[in-house]
């Protein structure tokens, strides 16, 4: 099937005008835009057969690669955004677009020195621009390279709507969240099955007078204990994080591993919570065991891995909806803890990416209007969605 040139001159003029409208704020006149003169000779290709993130390069920008179904269930039991999961169910396959922020991150991870302290990367951008999907792309890369992935799908869920809040047994002023902790441990177990028997504990952990986990026992035992004994699951999470932090520093020869800490919505760690104590006073994030342990994970005092974080305004509490920059969302305290970090901006779709997305939807029989092949509905979609990935 020969793909005709989908962006004729009239449409390109519309795109340029839309760009002006969007970029210059409200109430400005449309100016005459100089039109691009030449025909675009190359045919558009929207799929690539290179399914391994390590082999992808700039040549594959804007193209979709398929996530194998086995990887979808093991690596991402809880990681993908809800809309994307719906899409995977409808199209019967999971396809991710190769975009510039994810490729940049992967190249940094390839080039980093892992004997030095962990580098922190922060993905930021406007709402719906593709931060979580870029994070998932990077996690796929880390998994295929054999790293251990600690993925917290949405840190905002840990600071709001907590059904059960128990006072911590380990530290009297802190609070435990058993349900969230046990859910996370279950998903952690699905993701990292092969590491559970290889990593041995360096320390003895006592949970109650009669129960304890001995030194030298495999990590799997600790995780199973956390899943079954829901009351102490938050402390188990803390223990797991500590062990992984200490053991990630070892070199590759002596059966070491690299640790990737991936946190979505990292700005919730330093914000406010909506959880209240029994006397209706608000709980600060430091008083929650899970948040306290996560903060220790983000500090760059350990080696042998990387921390990849995403800012998110959508689930965050008490932050204005127009805020998207790191300084605004992290706050003073957060910025000081994350500093120094490598910021990676994530932008909306470019024209090439939009075209690729449009072709993908045509291929998957998602665009059903009889005029889909011609450019009139395309103009409509373009203008209404303002090239935002979430609305595509």
């Amino acid at each position, binding site marked *: 099937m020969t793909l005709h040139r989908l962006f004729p001159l009239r449409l390109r003029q519309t795109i340029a005008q839309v760009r002006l409208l969007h970029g210059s704020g409200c109430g400005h006149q449309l100016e005459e835009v100089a039109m691009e003169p030449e025909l675009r000779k190359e045919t558009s290709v929207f799929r690539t057969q290179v399914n391994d993130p390590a082999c992808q390069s700039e040549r594959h920008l804007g193209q979709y690669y398929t996530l194998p179904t086995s990887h979808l269930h093991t690596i991402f039991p809880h990681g993908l955004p809800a809309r994307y999961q719906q899409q995977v169910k409808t199209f019967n396959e999971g396809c991710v677009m190769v975009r510039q922020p994810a490729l940049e991150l992967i190249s940094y991870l390839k080039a980093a020195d892992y004997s030095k302290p962990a580098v922190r990367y922060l993905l930021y951008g406007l709402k719906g621009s593709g931060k979580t999907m870029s994070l998932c792309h990077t996690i796929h890369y880390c998994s295929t390279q054999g790293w251990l992935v600690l993925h917290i799908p949405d840190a905002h869920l840990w600071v709001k709507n907590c059904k059960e809040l128990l006072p911590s047994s380990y530290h009297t002023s802190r609070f435990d969240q058993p349900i969230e902790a046990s859910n996370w441990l279950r998903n952690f177990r699905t993701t990292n099955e092969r590491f559970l028997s290889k990593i041995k504990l360096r320390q003895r952990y006592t949970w109650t007078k009669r129960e304890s986990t001995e030194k030298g026992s495999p990590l799997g035992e600790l995780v199973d204990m956390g899943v079954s004994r829901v009351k102490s699951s938050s402390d188990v999470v803390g223990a797991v994080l500590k062990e992984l932090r200490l053991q990630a520093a070892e070199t590759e020869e002596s059966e070491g591993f690299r640790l990737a800490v991936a946190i979505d919505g990292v700005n919730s760690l330093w914000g406010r919570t909506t959880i209240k104590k029994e006397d209706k006073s608000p709980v600060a994030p430091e008083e929650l065991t899970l948040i306290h342990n996560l903060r220790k994970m983000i500090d760059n005092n350990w080696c042998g891995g990387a921390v990849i974080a995403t800012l998110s305004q959508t689930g965050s509490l008490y932050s204005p909806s127009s805020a998207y920059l790191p300084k605004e969302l992290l706050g003073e305290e957060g910025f000081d803890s994350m500093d120094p970090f490598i910021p990676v901006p994530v932008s909306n779709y470019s024209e090439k990416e939009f075209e690729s997305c449009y072709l993908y939807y045509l291929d998957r*029989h998602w665009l059903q*209007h009889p005029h889909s092949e011609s450019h009139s509905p395309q103009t*409509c979609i373009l203008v209404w969605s303002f090239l935002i990935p979430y609305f595509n």
Partner: protein
Amino acid sequence: VSASSIGRLVMLFLVRWSRYNPYYLEPEPRKELYNMPETELTTEQKEERELKAVRPIKATTNSTTSSVFNDPVLSKFVNMMMRDGEKILARGILTQTLESLKRKQVEKYHKAPQGKKAEIECNPYAIFHQALENCMPVIGLASIQKGGKFYQVPVPLTDNRRRFLAMKWMITECRDNKNRRTLMYEKLSQELLAAYSKEGNVIKRKHELHKMAESNRAYAHYRWW
């Protein structure tokens, strides 16, 4: 109706529902009809064009557009679903219904074997129109008084009345017979898919009306129009 909305209504001049003089013409929102060259027009269309040059035209409603996505049947359906003037909510429900219809059909399409793929209809607009057509009754009943008693007489229905009955039955069925936890768009999409394959409660209601009309065939001569 709140005080602020009363104030807003007073500022707008509502022309649409006022009694227009009969020589006002109906507006035509579709773009293709204006782009047709002179040669392709029939004599009636040529006369219409000449009339439009002299006569005034009624104002359109706010919900009509000249885009490809404008559909008069869908607009009517939205208006019938609307309650307390909340058009945005009704239109949102309809959009969600169409999306969920498309999702279910596309999922079935991708899971079907190669031979069966061509039979599955994925276009939600086509499914909606076909489902409505399947629900439209062919004959209706009118209550006619003769000799002191009222008889249910079988009577032909106009197209508008048939369309109205189909939409009304669809909406009442989805409002009344659903579980408390199911949302309107889910129930609507289930009913539309059932009507598309000629099953479901709305089709049953249409068949019951047909049966009543058939059983009252003897009174058909009471109709005088």
